[in-house]
């Protein structure tokens, strides 16, 4: 024992660690860990392990490193098995032989590393992974500068600093939209959105906009069936002012009776332009109302005309008290800010706003559709229209992403199946488009077609449904899956090219998809989807009994439009 202490004194800790092969073990560990991570990174997703399995392996590997060094130092391999180094007679020690074995192991691992790098260089993807090569584009992780925080009162704030331009974008997502309405107050969420700009107990109607614009800022807002979203775009010099303005209207909103009536006229004008004088939106409104028998997604977000005429100030203030509470909001800031300054301002301006009892949940779920529904809108029209809607999932359902890819295959651009068939090859349609609702509750997958004058609408409908049904029975090709993935991936990057796109994307993922972090998992999720996944979702959705068909055309008696 005494001689060991002397040895340490003489050789120093460094030499002793070297003698005990601690450094070799460390190198061996690092290289082996790298290889292991490469293997798990490839295999785990393909074996169906969840996303966090990769991260779990990383954590294990990191934790294991100090342990490995500790054991290398404390223990020693002897012909009689593993013993504590202090218990080994140093004259009998075989650490030198063990070191040679470690050298050999290191050499083997290094060869493996070189081979692995060579393979990935020569074959960007493993040769047997032949479905299609993954894109040569950096896959994003969650950028570490993004930070999220929930205030004491439940308000969630997400900040993504980006100092490319001296501007800031702020989005405020309010969980209130058409689905929170009922007959009599349809359109109220959207009307309320307008009233949020029309005065508080501390500011005159219109002052919000005048102050913001004078400080270099612009704003807007939109309402959907699920949410109301307020948007501010401003120079970073106006950051505190925007907090001040937003905090004021979240606490002190008032409704002046004259302003209320004037704004009713504004929204009615918006309805006339967007719906009543627009055949596309007229038909969409009717199809939406027909596709649902129970769920409030049946209401037009702009509101039915009689409700626009009927809203009262009491309706508006009740709506304000119910939904405009901090615990019902998600705010996103992107651009020329730091997370710390945003959080500090939020504590000052927003944290004092008390949390409220959460609004009643929307309980109604649309029951299974029991058979096809059809409707006709007759109106002046030079070009008839055909809309076809199917009930599908909510934003967070696992079917949403495969359906998004499927829609790219069906209607995404000029190379899509439906465009090629109906517009290019058979000239049955002037245009064909589609989308899916991605909301809190199950929504619709929606196709809308504009047809040439004198079109045979029935024939078009047949061809459209046949094409959709063919996906359910025969699936899609690998090339189509690859194309859809590429489109989604490119769109992902396009979204992140502006601070506005970043704010919008972060907010949507935070509100609808269970966390802003999931935005960055999208490219990888997309890569994991297969043709089978897409076929399965087609089979589940594209059924006749699950379908609502709407046709808009001129009355039968009307003369056909002349052709030049």
């Amino acid at each position, binding site marked *: 024992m005494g001689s060991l202490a002397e040895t340490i004194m003489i050789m120093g800790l460094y030499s002793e660690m070297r003698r005990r092969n601690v450094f070799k073990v460390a190198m061996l560990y690092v290289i082996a860990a790298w290889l292991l991570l490469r293997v798990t990174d490839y295999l785990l997703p393909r074996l169906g392990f969840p996303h966090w399995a990769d991260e779990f392996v990383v954590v294990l590997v990191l934790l294991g490193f100090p342990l490995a060094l500790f054991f290398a130092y404390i223990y020693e391999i002897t012909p009689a098995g593993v013993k504590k180094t202090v218990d080994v007679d140093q004259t009998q020690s075989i650490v030198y032989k063990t070191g040679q074995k470690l050298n050999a192991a290191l050499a083997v691992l290094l060869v493996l590393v070189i081979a692995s790098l060579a393979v990935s260089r020569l074959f960007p993807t493993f040769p047997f992974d032949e479905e299609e090569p993954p894109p040569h584009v950096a896959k994003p992780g969650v950028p570490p500068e993004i930070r999220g925080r929930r205030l004491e009162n439940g308000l969630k704030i997400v900040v993504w600093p980006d100092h*490319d331009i001296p501007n800031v974008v702020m989005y405020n997502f309010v969980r209130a939209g058409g689905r929170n309405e009922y007959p009599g107050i349809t359109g109220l969420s959207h009307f309320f959105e307008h009233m949020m700009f029309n005065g508080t107990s501390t500011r005159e109607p*219109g002052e919000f906009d005048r102050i913001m614009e004078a400080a270099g800022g612009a704003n807007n807002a939109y309402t959907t069936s699920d949410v109301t979203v307020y948007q501010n775009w401003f120079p970073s*010099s106006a950051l505190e002012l925007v907090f001040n303005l937003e905090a004021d209207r979240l606490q002190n909103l008032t409704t002046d009776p004259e302003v209320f009536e004037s704004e009713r006229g504004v929204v009615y004008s918006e309805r006339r332009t967007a719906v009543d004088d627009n055949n596309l939106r007229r038909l969409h409104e009717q199809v939406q109302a027909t596709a649902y028998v129970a769920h409030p997604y049946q209401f037009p977000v702009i509101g039915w005309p009689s409700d626009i005429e009927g809203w009262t100030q009491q309706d508006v203030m009740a709506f304000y008290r119910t939904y405009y509470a901090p615990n019902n909001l998600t705010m996103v800031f992107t651009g020329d800010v730091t997370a710390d300054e945003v959080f500090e301002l939020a504590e000052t301006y927003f944290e004092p706003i008390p949390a409220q009892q959460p609004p009643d949940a929307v309980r109604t779920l649309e029951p299974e559709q029991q058979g096809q529904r059809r409707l006709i809108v007759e109106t002046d029209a030079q070009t008839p229209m055909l809309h076809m809607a199917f009930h599908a999932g909510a934003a967070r359902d696992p079917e949403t992403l495969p359906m998004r890819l499927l829609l790219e295959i069906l209607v995404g651009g000029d*190379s899509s199946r439906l465009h090629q068939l109906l517009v290019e090859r058979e000239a049955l349609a002037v245009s064909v488009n589609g989308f899916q609702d991605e909301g809190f509750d199950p929504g619709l997958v929606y196709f809308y077609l504009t047809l040439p*004058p004198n079109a045979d609408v029935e024939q078009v409908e047949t061809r459209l449904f046949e094409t959709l049904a063919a996906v359910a029975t025969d699936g899609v090709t690998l090339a189509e899956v690859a194309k859809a993935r590429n489109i989604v991936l*490119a769109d992902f*990057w396009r979204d*992140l090219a502006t601070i506005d796109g970043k704010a919008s994307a972060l907010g949507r993922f935070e509100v609808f998809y269970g966390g802003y972090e999931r935005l960055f998992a999208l490219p990888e999720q997309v890569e994991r989807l297969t043709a089978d996944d897409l076929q399965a979702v087609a089979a589940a959705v594209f059924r006749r009994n699950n379908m609502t068909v709407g046709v808009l055309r001129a009355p039968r008696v009307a003369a056909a439009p002349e052709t*030049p």
Partner: protein
Amino acid sequence: MRRLSVAVSILLLSCTLFDTAASAGRVTLPAYERVALDNGTVLILNRHAEVPLIGIRAVLKGGAVADPAGMNGMAGLYAALIGKGAGDRDAASFAEAIGGVGGMLTAGAGLESIDIEADFLARDADLAVELLSDMLMRPLLDETEFDKLRERSINLIRTAKDTNLNGLMPDYGAAFLFGAHPYGNPTNGSEETLGNISHEALLAYYEAQIGGDRLIVSVSGDFEIDAMRERLTAAFGGWRPALEPLPEVAAVEPESGRRVLLVDKPGATQTYFWIANVGVAVDYPSRAGLEIANTVYGGRFTSMLNTALRIESGLTYGARSVLLRPSRPGSVAISSYTRTDATVEAIDMALGVLSRLHEKGIGESMIESAQNYILGQFPTRLETAAQLAGQLAVLEAHGLDDSYVNAYAEAVTAADRASVEAVIAEVYPLPDDLVFVLLGDADAIRDSIAKYGPLTEAAITEPRFRIPSSAQQDSGNR
């Protein structure tokens, strides 16, 4: 490997966008390279690697002003047809080549140019250049595709007349204001003029009006400058010039007096109106003062027009003042809409705002507010690779230098009340000198709008935008 690429992408996302003196709106253009090829094609290259995308804006000078007589829509039809097969690819494979990699490649006609925008993942830059050069230099211009496209273009106009009434106003407006002048050409033609275009005429147009001397290719994004310059030079350096010169566009003077076009859309719930005269050109020297004046008068939410017609009276969802400044004086227009029975009330109110602009001008505090607004919003217009590529191409196309962008903030800051009032007097028409275009339910409004001036009337189903004025003898310049 994901963990490695995480680091790479974080690096990319936090990369500085461009070398700007970007404070309080003082954005300047980034360093870029301009190369003039021997055949007249100009290349503009700017590396901008925030996201792994590449944006290309190709501009062919010409556009709707160069449409052959009676064949409005030729430039638009050509722009659409070059995407229907080029090089070794037929229409379907050309579309597949774009969509297959998640790219976007669109071409369309404007008044004075044909613009092609390409937006691809950076890894597909070679393909983007290949497709672009194929569609410009080796388009198939196939007759069957031409026939389909022409029919479809005509139907898209019919659809617009069923769905987007406000969107039709610029075409009806320009055609009525400028008449037979090229600035009256509807950029995508009309049902009638598209019908006049034959495949043969399009082939002749391609030879006469399209070529390398008309081309600007501006590229911005994540790529290596040297390699891209070589690739573009090889791709476009040998393209032939257009056989015929660009048509000269004469300047039109503002007209005096009033005249009215009423486009009848039976059953329309609103009247859409566009009230205008001839304004100024792209090289208008007091541009900063004009932007300030227009911001206050009709260019933002709290503008005088929107305050009167929307905020204070609830007559409309929106009212604004729109300036078009092509190479020669374009239009300056009030644009709005209101429910049918409020037509006269809203138009009178808009004319009252125009009078007030002339009589009372704009106060100091409003000028300062507009200066802040313009400077505060300006940086967002040059944020992305695609925006930069577009801006650089536009400067080149109009022969403007960098000071158009770089000196803008300073000019906005320097403008004062006197200079803004001088601009108002020079640019905005007086209420007595206006061309009115109204689209709505004619039977319901015909009598009440007669007071605005001599009336010309047409049905929305008439297959044309250019409606000959029945009152041309009354107008000042015709």
